[in-house]
Structure formats: C-alpha cells, structure tokens
C-alpha cells in the first residue's frame, strides 16, 4: 500500500499543508512526494525533510491542471493511493486525473477510518458521510486542517522524472495578495472579520489584532464581495476551511456557509452587537458590543498582557 502525494507550493515555497498530508497519508502506506514546478529543486529539498517521506520526485514544468495531471498519470500505476490536499490545486487536478484513470475519487477527507474507509463532510459540513472505497487504486484529497503535521529531520532522496508534459491552457498571470499573515488553512489562531467591519480601512483594525496575536486573518463572503478583503481570505463552504485552536469572529453573523469553514476550530470566540447572532450562540466566549469600540481596546489590553508569540 503505497502513496503518491502531490505537494502544494506557491512562489517557490512548499505549502505548510504538506507535512500534515504526509502524516495523514502515512496511515495508507509509504509516502513518495511529487513536486511539479518550474524550479522544483528548493521545494523538493524542503519536502525531503518531512519525516516519513521515502523519496521526492520532481517534474520541471509550469504547474497548471494539465501538466500536473499528466505528471501524476505517468506515475500513478506504481501506487495504490494518489493523494493531494483539498486546496485549489488538488481540487483542480484530482477529478481530472480520476476521469482519465476511470476511478471515482473520494475528496475532502477529514478522517481515515481504515485504508479504504473515509469520512468526508457534505452539505456545507452539516452532515458527515462515511464511504467505503473498494476500488484497487484510491484517488483522494485530504483537508490539511483536519490532521496534525509530521515532524521534520528527514533526508529523503530527490529524483527528477524526465518527462515532457504539455498544456493547451496557458498560464498568463498571478494576482497575489501581498500579506505577511500566516497561512489560513494551517494557522493556530485566526481572526475573522465580517461585512460590518465596513471598509478596507476597517479591516486594518482586524489585521492589527491579528498581528498582536500572530494570527492569520480571514473574512466572510459578504466582506470579500464588498471589496473589504481579498478573495483568498474567504472562510467557508466556498472559501478556505480552517481548524485553528482559536477562532475570533468579529462582526460575523454565522451563516451556515460560513460555519462550514470553521467547524474544526477548537475554540470559537465572538464579538457581535447582536446577542442573537448564530455565531454568538455557538461561541465558547462572546462579547456583545460595537466592534469599533471593542477591537482597539482589545488590542491595547492584549499588548498590556504582553502576549508574544
């Protein structure tokens, strides 16, 4: 039972999700990592350090759905499991690969019950489906946030696979959100802001609180649609799925599509002017009041307490 795991990376840096995927995949067998990138060397070197990795395979190509799918297809016969993160890349390529290999994939897995039994959320996380996959090869995506990271300290060998992969679709441009906040999907603390934050300037207040706590910053769809926050900050059914130790939701009503993204949070704190807001109802700790008054005071208070992370 062996695993081929597709590594996510951005801007030449390995995604922090990879160590979690390795730990999760180890339940299925020995893990080899595939890196498809224009310059895979430094990404592969990072991947080789993750404990439990047997080897890292690199393909030099512009990563886009067709090149990644073709690389995976080239290697897939050697493995019983092909795994990717339930990220924008994994979601793009695993179903494409599945159709090529005529395999029904199981995606957004949050729990591995046995090598062929998995749990995945449906209906925006309002139900959990347990499926048995009797197919000879399993195509899977895992939600990184549901698993703990593997340790580092490994020195797995790196091999380059000399294949030429092409794509009819061409990559034109990346529009990257400039931000030095931690990765949302794997952050330990997340601060979320809703549409009631009122403006992009208002979001600087949320970001300031984020900095104080070393937290990642997220937003509701309503806040993103209004242009107050970038799209890659969206948390929820259509955005990112988070599972931090602490989620602080500020001016967020708690629509079920938003709750879909935060169900894995250990503790949920809420600041809201409405004591009846659904998010207040499920929060472990809530403070009722005006966010514009509360958040600056909270920053001062936390600075006074001297939390340094």
């Amino acid at each position, binding site marked *: 039972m062996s695993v081929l795991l597709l590594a996510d990376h951005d801007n030449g840096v390995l995604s922090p999700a990879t160590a979690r995927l390795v730990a999760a995949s180890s339940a299925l067998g020995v893990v080899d990592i595939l890196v498809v990138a224009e310059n895979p060397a430094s990404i592969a070197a990072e991947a080789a350090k993750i404990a439990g990795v047997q080897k890292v395979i690199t393909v030099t190509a512009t990563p886009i759905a067709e090149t990644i799918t073709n690389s995976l297809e080239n290697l897939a016969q050697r493995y019983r499991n092909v795994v990717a993160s339930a990220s924008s890349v994994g979601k793009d390529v695993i179903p494409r690969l*599945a159709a090529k290999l005529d395999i029904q994939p*199981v995606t957004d897995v949050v729990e591995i019950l046995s090598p062929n039994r998995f749990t995945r959320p449906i209906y925006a996380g309002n139900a959990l489906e*347990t499926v048995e996959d009797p197919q000879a090869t399993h195509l899977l995506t895992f939600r990184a946030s549901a698993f703990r*990271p593997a340790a580092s300290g490994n020195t797995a060998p790196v091999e380059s696979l000399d294949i030429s992969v092409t794509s009819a679709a061409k990559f034109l441009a990346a529009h990257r959100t400039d931000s030095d906040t931690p990765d949302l999907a794997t952050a330990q603390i997340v601060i979320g802001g809703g549409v009631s934050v009122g403006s992009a300037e208002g979001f600087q207040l949320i970001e300031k609180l984020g900095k104080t706590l070393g937290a990642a910053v997220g937003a509701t769809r309503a806040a993103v649609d209004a242009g107050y926050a970038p799209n890659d900050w969206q948390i929820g059914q259509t955005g990112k799925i988070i599972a931090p130790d602490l989620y602080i939701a500020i001016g967020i009503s708690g629509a079920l599509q938003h709750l879909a993204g935060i169900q894995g949070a250990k503790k949920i704190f809420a600041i809201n002017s409405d004591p009846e807001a659904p998010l207040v109802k499920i929060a472990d700790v*809530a*403070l009722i009041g005006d966010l514009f008054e509360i958040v600056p005071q909270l920053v001062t208070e936390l600075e006074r307490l001297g939390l340094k992370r």
Partner: protein
Amino acid sequence: MKILVAVKRVVDHNVRIRVRPDGTGVETTGVRMSMNPFCKHAVEAAVQLAEKGDVSEIVIVSIGPKQSNDVILTALAMGARRGILIETDAALETLTIAKLLAKVVSEEQPDLILLGKQAVDDDSNHVGQMLAALTNRPQATFASQIVVKGAELEVTREVDYGRETISVPLPAVVTADLRLNTPRNAALPMVMKARSKPLAVRPATEFGVDLAPRLRTEKISPPTERVPGKTVGSVSDFAAAVASEVNEMEAL
C-alpha cells in the same frame, strides 16, 4: 459559439438540512429545492456572453429526477434556448454524471461548456474537471471572470494565493465561482416563455453508461454539536479569556 450549461437541482441553500436518524442520508422529502447557486452563475455567464453577441445557442442539461425540469425552466427563463433532462431517480456518482454529460457533449459539440464549480449538497467539486478530461478539453475552474479573445478565453480563477489568469483555447470547460457575476431573476414574461421552449426528456439508461456506483456509503451522520459557551461582560474579561487560550496552546 455554442454553449452547453450543466445545472443541478439541490436542496435550497437556505434550508438547514436534517440528517435522517437512521443514518441513510439527509431528509429531502418536503424540503425546498432549487438550482444549485453555482450553476446559476454558470447560466448567467452564458447569457451575458450571448448578450455580447457571439453565441449561436445556449443548451441546458440536467441529470436527475423528473422535478429537475424546474431548474431547467429557471435556466430557460434566464435566457437559454432549449433544455435536456437526463432522467434518473438514482443517486449517481460524479464520474457517472461526467460520463453522461460527455455523451451529450459528443452529440451537441458545444464550443464552451459551463458548469458550477461545486454543488452545495455533495460539495464534490468534481464534475467540470472530469468532463474536461473525458472530452479531452482544457479546463478553467473556479472562474471569477471570463473574457472572450477570438478563439480563446482569458479566465481569471480564484485560487488559494489570490487570483490567477490563464488562457484556454476553445473548445473548453469552465466552472463558475460566485463572484463571476450576479445572476438575474427572470421576469414573469420570460418565465411564461420558458414553458414553450423545447425540453427533451431522455432516460439516463439510454446513453450506454454504467450507472452503478463504485463507492459504498456506509452512513450519513450529523456533525458533533458544539456546547454553548458563555458571554463575558467586559473587554478585559474577553482579553483574559483570549490570553488563557493562547497560553494553553502547544507550540507547533
């Protein structure tokens, strides 16, 4: 340009669903159903392209029970020309859905196939990508903007790091994200007119596709309930609670 749009009938996104106590699934009897929101954005994108002038025909296809006619009618009222219902009462897997759609693609030969990026019931996010592979076409998933440039599309996609723009030569498959556009509500005359547009109903069994599922659903269970917490009275109490959480966190 000919456009095919695949639409799915799902439990309305405003309905708070209930898991059946016997673990066999989600209660759908007597529950309000409507077109999957992502599919609405896909239909709107097709209609907007047609309004710009370079579209010969918009065809709608849905796979599901007889009642899926309703969502096809919604799409026809938004401006599509004709509909195809592939009728089945069975719960089909995504790969089977994609194979049935691929048969329709080989009959209809559309230049552009639009789908929603995911359906809000099963949240799979599979079908567009699978259909692209089965029909050997390039794909542009999670689209928030589509610009026609001759025989190519420039598509801006919502991805984890922000957005990216790619070009895809036609014929191609594009899946719609929610920020692609604002779907119209069809006016009553359009709704009336939709009823006279052609709608072919064909049994799923006539396409020569094996409809049997590969996976076995063992059970559907409700998620664990969160225990209600407490409301604190002041910012300093709230800050103290935050501090105590942070201090308890194990270093990763």
